[in-house]
């Protein structure tokens, strides 16, 4: 008996070591299957096949659009467009792995570009955008897409935020109009919370998914910003005041449980369930609510800190960036030429429920009364400083830390973020 046991021990030990190593390594090296099909490497020759890695905005529309686009692209240029759709959860990892393996796609759709431009991986708009396309893009997005004076981040679509409110809860609470100032906002949130029966005044998502977005729109409406005149202002007096205000909503129990750990989608889900009085939303949320027909909601401009202030909106755009590879320039240029044709870009944006990025797009979307609130503000929308590569890291730091201010000290949290931003992320 003793002999078998000790033999087992031996076997188990070596088996264990081998397994342990294998699993740990497998865990580390996961995600290298990035596909080897990216054409265009053949030096000197012109690429006839290019690869697009696109983010999945919706299950129903994203793949359908890009597949059709690839067909149109083939018909128009004779080139092949390989399309790979990746979920937002995975796209950072996938794109990083592709670059790491020296096998980037020709076109990548992402919410950041500046770090790639800084690493000199991208074509600038001078290389791949026609003048007619460039002049059609909205100024705000040309600015946010430009790194060191050159445009690298071509906007694919945009969104702008606004205050969504539940009309039924407002009526029950005796509120007649959407709040215009922060004081009114807080008073309204109190009234809704006081309704009881699980009613929540305000859905505040400061969890890691997108806390920078929620904080942005509040800070812009208090005259604050992430960066001013080329300097980081994350811990400015206004921003500390803004975050403290958000914290006070939490401590006064006007929000859902644990706002520092609530992701945006969770807050949207709560609003869609009819429990929440107000939430900062955007047009895709409206589309979801319209489809479910459960909540009667209104959309209003954001309340401002100052009485009689001009409501500010937070705009977001994602980017289609083009990687420099031997021989792919013409094919990439043809891609952009086709994408920014009115019937392409605008039908994509319409299907996904977002907002246009071109002047001609705004003209086309004007007829849609539902989008009026956003379209007016879109050209003047504030964006996060996506043109600064440092922001790519600061954004992650914000996502991973901002929520802790709900139980900690807002100033300390912002001081720390400011410090890491000044140190270059």
């Amino acid at each position: 008996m003793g002999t078998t046991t000790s033999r087992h021990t031996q076997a188990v030990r070596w088996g264990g070591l081998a397994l342990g190593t294998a699993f740990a390594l497998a865990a580390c090296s996961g995600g290298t299957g990035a596909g080897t099909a990216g054409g265009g490497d053949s030096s000197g020759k012109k690429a006839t096949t290019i690869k697009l890695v696109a983010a999945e905005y919706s299950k129903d529309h994203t793949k359908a659009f890009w597949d059709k686009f690839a067909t149109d692209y083939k018909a128009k240029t004779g080139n092949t467009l390989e399309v790979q759709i990746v979920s937002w959860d995975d796209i950072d990892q996938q794109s990083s792995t592709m670059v790491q393996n020296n096998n980037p796609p020709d076109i990548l759709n992402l919410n950041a570009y500046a770090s790639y431009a800084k690493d000199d991986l991208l074509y600038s708009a001078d290389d791949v955008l026609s003048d007619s396309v460039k002049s059609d893009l909205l100024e705000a997005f040309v600015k946010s897409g430009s790194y060191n004076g050159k445009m690298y981040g071509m906007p694919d679509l945009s969104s702008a935020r606004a205050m969504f409110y539940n009309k039924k809860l407002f009526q029950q609470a005796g509120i007649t109009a959407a709040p215009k100032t922060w004081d009114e906002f807080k008073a309204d949130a109190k009234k809704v919370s006081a309704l009881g029966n699980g009613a929540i005044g305000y859905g505040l998502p400061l969890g890691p998914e997108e806390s920078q977005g929620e904080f942005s729109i509040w800070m812009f409406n208090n005259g604050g910003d992430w960066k001013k005149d080329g300097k980081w202002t994350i811990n400015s007096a206004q921003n500390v005041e803004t975050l403290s205000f958000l914290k006070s909503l939490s401590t006064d129990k006007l929000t859902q449980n644990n706002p520092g750990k609530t992701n945006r989608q969770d807050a949207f889900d709560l609003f869609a369930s009819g429990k929440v009085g107000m939430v900062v939303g955007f047009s895709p949320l409206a589309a979801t609510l319209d489809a479910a027909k459960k909540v009667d909601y209104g959309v209003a401009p954001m309340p401002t800190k100052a009485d009689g202030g001009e409501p500010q909106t937070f705009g977001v755009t994602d980017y289609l960036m083009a990687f420099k590879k031997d021989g792919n320039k013409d094919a990439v240029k043809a891609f952009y030429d086709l994408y920014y044709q009115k019937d392409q870009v605008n039908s994509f944006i319409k299907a996904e429920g977002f907002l246009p990025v071109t002047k001609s797009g705004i003209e086309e979307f004007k007829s849609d009364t539902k989008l009026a609130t956003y379209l007016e503000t879109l050209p003047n929308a504030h964006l996060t400083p996506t043109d600064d590569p440092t922001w790519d890291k600061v954004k992650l730091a914000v996502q991973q830390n901002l929520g802790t201010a709900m139980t900690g000290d807002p100033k300390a949290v912002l001081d720390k973020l400011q410090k890491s931003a000044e140190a270059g992320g």
Partner: protein
Amino acid sequence: MTQTASAPVGATGDPAAPTAGRRPRRARPRRGRASLGQALLWLGPALLLIFGVVVYPAVELVKASLSRYSITGLRKGDAGLDNYTNVLANESLGTVLTNTLVWVVAVVALTILISLGLAQFLTKEFWGRRIVRWAVIVPWAASLVITARLFSLIYSYYYGTLNAVLLKIGLVDTPIDFLGDDRWIMPSMIAVGVFVSIPFTAYVFVAGLHAIPTDVYEAARIDGASPWQIWRRITLPLLRPAILVATVLNMIYVFNSFPIIYTLNESNPGFSHDTTITFMYKLAFKSAEKDVGQSAAAGLFNVLLILVAVVIYLRVSRWREEEES
């Protein structure tokens, strides 16, 4: 249980199946030597596999850990040992290591304890045993990501079934924030970890129990041993190999478990509830570091950590074995 000289190791192709009664003679290899070419032919596929999935990634991992990467994933040059020192200097490292220890020890210990009981139950004859046995396998058969997602719904503060039940039977007045309240997150994750580890472990024990010859029990009963004595003096010692296998494998599985912690901990900012595995992932893709090099360094630390843990465990259990004899 006397200790004799250990049998020759390296019996050909005999997997470490817990067939306790088998004589070593049968397993002893013939001494005829195969030529090198023949040996390579037989070993080839295994060697290729080992090279492909162990050696090559390991080399790449070491290379990555010594390189400086841009946030985009572009290699910028050599980093020396910077990545290692940066990981060691990470202010959350202490928390992460503590979490890992709690996670592995709690999940493995609870799994072994519960599985011991469950295995006893599953070896008894009763009506519907087949169904129960199948039911026990289910958590194992389901994908970890799906199980984790399911539990994040069960635990949910607003829509969770668990809170609904607790409120209904009046055990609590307000819902418990299982996945957001710092006191509850780790226990909630451990419960899921135990849930998915039990099937495998219980079946290892069932196999171990079947391998114990019935005549030993008969003899004990004739000698007038109580059920507790029988379990303590016969079942448990004869289950040792099975327990050893189950513990080591579980340590490795649980240590490397990614989906449960990543999914259930999704909405919590920072590293406060991460283990070294999710820490490694977040270093590469989610945290402000976003640094493949640091993540690779953390990955190497992970390998070392689990190796050391397993070796220590085996040392300790062997030491006890010698003391007993």
